[in-house]
């Protein structure tokens, strides 16, 4: 088994108040089968034994579904592979002795907590304003009473596949969250159950997105390119349509 060495430049920042900088580390004896996060574990073990504070980063499932991990690797969120989270990126995709720059998601609405850990609770607050179908437990009708054509269900699923990692925001030059919000809106707007609250949902979620300080969309599609679930920007176009429709309807209401 061949072992590789990498030169890491890692963003270290003690907390949101202090200023951060890139710090150089050497990752030694790295196997091509290691995941990116396992490589960081090895670097951290060395840092710990030297008595220093290890690099803080978020992770949980390590199988690409929880959306916890999020690292900008060589200038691209989640690194060079399409449809991949940071935890599912393997070191075989890097050249031995390569210099790898490692940074956190950077956005005003994702305040930095420490090193590579950021606060993405703005996403949860957007969901709280309307990202649901209101149906109290026990109030549900028999599931097959509402048939949903397979293609519609499949399309709703494509939107619902979002794991809320925030890579779309991290990649966008405007730190815009419209792909996230668009996907969330379309997941529910495509299905018959979601119609009753469709307008209210679009208005409230977009307003909250604005209040959180995310930027506007420039239609560059970087978000789709880095999305681990490859969610299409068509959901952004649909968000625009849904929002305008809802806003005009609201304006015309006597």
């Amino acid at each position, binding site marked *: 088994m061949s072992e590789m060495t990498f030169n890491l430049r890692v963003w270290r920042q003690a907390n949101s108040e202090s200023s951060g900088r890139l710090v150089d580390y050497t990752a030694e004896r790295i196997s091509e089968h290691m995941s990116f996060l396992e490589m960081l574990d090895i670097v951290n073990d060395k840092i710990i034994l030297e008595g220093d504070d290890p690099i803080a980063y978020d992770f949980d499932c390590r199988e690409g579904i929880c959306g916890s991990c999020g690292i900008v690797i060589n200038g691209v969120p989640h690194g060079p592979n399409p449809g991949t989270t940071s935890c599912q990126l393997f070191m075989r995709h890097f050249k031995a002795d390569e210099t790898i720059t490692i940074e956190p998601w950077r*956005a005003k609405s994702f305040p930095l907590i420490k090193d590579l850990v950021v606060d993405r609770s703005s996403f949860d607050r957007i969901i709280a304003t309307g990202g649901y179908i209101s149906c109290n437990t026990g109030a549900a009708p028999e599931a097959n009473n509402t048939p949903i054509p397979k293609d519609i269900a499949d399309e709703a699923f494509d939107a619902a596949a979002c794991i809320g990692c925030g890579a779309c925001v991290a990649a966008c030059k405007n730190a815009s969250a419209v792909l996230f919000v668009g996907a969330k809106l379309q997941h529910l707007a495509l299905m018959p159950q979601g119609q009753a609250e469709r307008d209210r949902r679009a208005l409230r979620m977009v307003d909250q997105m604005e209040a959180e300080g995310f*930027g506007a969309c420039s*239609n560059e599609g*970087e978000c*789709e*390119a880095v999305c681990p679930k*490859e969610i299409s920007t068509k959901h*952004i*176009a649909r968000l625009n349509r849904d929002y305008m429709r809802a*806003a005009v309807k609201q304006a015309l209401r006597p």
Partner: protein
Amino acid sequence: MNALTRILNSPVGRKVTMAVSGLLLLGFLVAHLTGNMLILVSKETFNHYGHTLISNPMIYLAEAGLLGLFVMHFTTGLYLTRKNRAARPQAYERNERAGYASRKTLASTTMIFSGLVVLVFVPLHIWGFKFGAYYESAEPGVRDLHRLVIETFQQPAWVIWYVAVMTIVGFHLWHGFGSGFESLGLSYRKGLRRFGQFLAVVIAGGFLLIPVLIYMIGDKL
């Protein structure tokens, strides 16, 4: 806050404002280019076209409308740019294009700069032609705009300036057209984006062809 201001001040509303004003201005450019092409037909046709335009009383309304669109487009654009920059207070140390599905281009990342160039260009352009030297044509009351155009574009500095600006306008349209339609939620399809890029080349190419032709063979026009 009334409903209309709410719509216009929303993030979607602002993008729709950009898209609608931008696409209407693009429509104006198509009309403008068609008119300009008349210079290749004959001196009289071109001058008559100009005369018909300015002697129509509706011209003031049209000019006001154009000015309104222009102001709307650049003020919203400047506002959004400031806001977008504020959304990422700290820049990445290293930032790369993601590739794959990304449509990020030199054109898309420089919209504000290409837009600012146009913002400088338009007053100069109006000052140079609309309020430029007044030559009387053979026909009484009809301005000889043809002569002014030919004289201007026989000076290399003007030609270079116009060629440069029109190329930049092309860049602006390259991203702007498709992006406008996406903002309107009308289409996210590849074909429309391609058509926009084609249009950008045609419009920029058409506009810069005229000064180049005049510089090269102006005495024959």
